[in-house]
């Protein structure tokens, strides 16, 4: 309103001055109306935000899709491929750089789904190859529910345990989703391990499982080393042993349940032996045994 005086001073005719004044007034009225609307909307928005979320909203939030949307934004095939590749090279701590502060939940879901398939399939293949030809093989469908419960269970429980332990020992800059994410990518190396374990040779299976143990534990420890060194120096061994211990237990469970059936009968030979034509059906072993 203070600009009207300056407009009036410089004008030649009073009519022109009135016109200018009228225009300015009209413009200001319109501005006022528009900004009132905008202010009303803004006030409403602020009120909605300042309202405390109701109890129902707080508990129901994890069941809405919107809750998980932030974890899938800006996700590209390239980033996921880079993370998967990085999980096979545990000595380089590049995972958090690639992730760049945006943990994703795509990895956990689909890596564990693939693992369930791989373990169930490989367990059955190794059982099939390990039985002798004269024994009929029954596909064990129980592997799938067992593998899903086991893997999707550890998907949340072990990262939760690691998160709680690290938080209690003084870790900072930790987010539960980030721990779930990195734990899932650490299990990626077990997929090729399962494929290798479908061959029913016990030494091969143990070797592959030990490689899986070492790779996944190292991946987690090396990537968390910075965090461990900075914030938890004194008690970092607790976290390291926790991580390694969980991996050892997991892979022992794999061996004892899914890849248990390694049938080494020297007389008949398993289907695998017949496939690779290793078995010798001379009974020299039997004679040798009888002499002593």
């Amino acid at each position, binding site marked *: 309103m203070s600009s009207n005086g300056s407009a009036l001073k410089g004008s030649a005719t009073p009519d022109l001055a009135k016109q200018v004044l009228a225009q300015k007034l009209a413009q200001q009225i319109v501005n006022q109306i528009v900004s009132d609307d905008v202010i009303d909307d803004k006030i409403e928005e602020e009120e909605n935000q300042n309202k405390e979320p109701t109890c129902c909203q707080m508990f129901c939030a994890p069941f809405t899709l919107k809750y998980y*949307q932030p974890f899938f934004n800006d*996700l590209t*095939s390239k980033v996921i491929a880079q993370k998967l590749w990085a999980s096979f090279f545990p000595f380089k701590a590049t995972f958090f750089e690639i992730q760049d502060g945006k943990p994703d939940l795509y990895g956990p879901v689909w890596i564990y789904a*693939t693992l369930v398939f791989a373990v169930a399939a490989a367990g059955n293949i190794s059982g099939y190859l390990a039985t002798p030809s004269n024994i009929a093989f*029954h*596909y064990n*469908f129980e592997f799938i529910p067992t593998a899903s419960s086991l893997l999707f269970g550890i998907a949340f429980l072990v990262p939760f345990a690691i998160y709680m332990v690290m938080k209690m020992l003084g870790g900072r800059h930790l987010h539960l989703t980030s721990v779930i994410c990195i734990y899932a990518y650490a299990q990626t190396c077990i997929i090729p391990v399962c494929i290798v374990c479908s061959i029913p040779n016990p030494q091969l299976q143990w070797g592959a499982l030990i490689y899986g143990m070492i790779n996944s534990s190292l991946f987690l420890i090396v990537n968390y080393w910075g965090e461990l060194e900075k914030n938890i120096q004194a008690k970092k061994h607790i976290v390291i042993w926790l991580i390694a211990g969980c991996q050892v237990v997991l892979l022992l469970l794999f061996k004892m349940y899914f890849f248990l059936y390694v049938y080494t009968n020297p007389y008949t030979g398993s289907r695998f032996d017949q496939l690779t034509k290793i078995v010798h059906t001379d009974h020299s072993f039997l004679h040798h045994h009888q002499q002593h």
Partner: protein
Amino acid sequence: MTDNHPFGSGMFQGQAKFVDYAHMNQQEVQVNTLDEPVLDTLLRDINMILYKLSYVIIPRMKETQGRKLRNWDLWGPLLLSLLLAMTLGINSNQSSDTIFGTIFIIMWGGSAVITVNAKLLGGQVSFFQSVCVLGYCVFPINVAAVVITFLQSYFGFFLRLVIVGVAFLWSTFSSLSFMSSMMNEEKKVISVYPIFLFYMFLSWFCIFI
């Protein structure tokens, strides 16, 4: 609803509604068809299912041709999943209840998870359309399972592998044309991989009946 009909909506408004089998509005169906013989209702539904199956049998790679699959219904996927679960359950004597349950859960739970995944990755896909498409595209795997069940004694292991492999690839390509048209270029691989895993899971059961 009267989009493709040559007579505009003006001519027949209030007198009769154009009955489009593939695009039925549920309330209108109930008003018009409550008195019709049951056989008519069944035949209409079966026609709808067969119409959609023809889209699965001949995978259309162009997105425009897959548009008819957007009129979703869940009868087809239900019938196909029951058929698959029963076929696979018949053959294995020991654990037929585990198989039935596993196949059912994998099929419906898997479709739901893949759809949620596609939505979260930013795809403009409706939940039930996607579940419908994924369910219908299980048809080739169903055919393979039935063929293997009834001609078991003639097939060696490798022939079985070939049949199931062909069925798996067929299913995957059928659903790809619908699903991948929804996604960005940079997210195509990560949205297609779950579909690949889903059909691989279902095909795997067929090999080892």
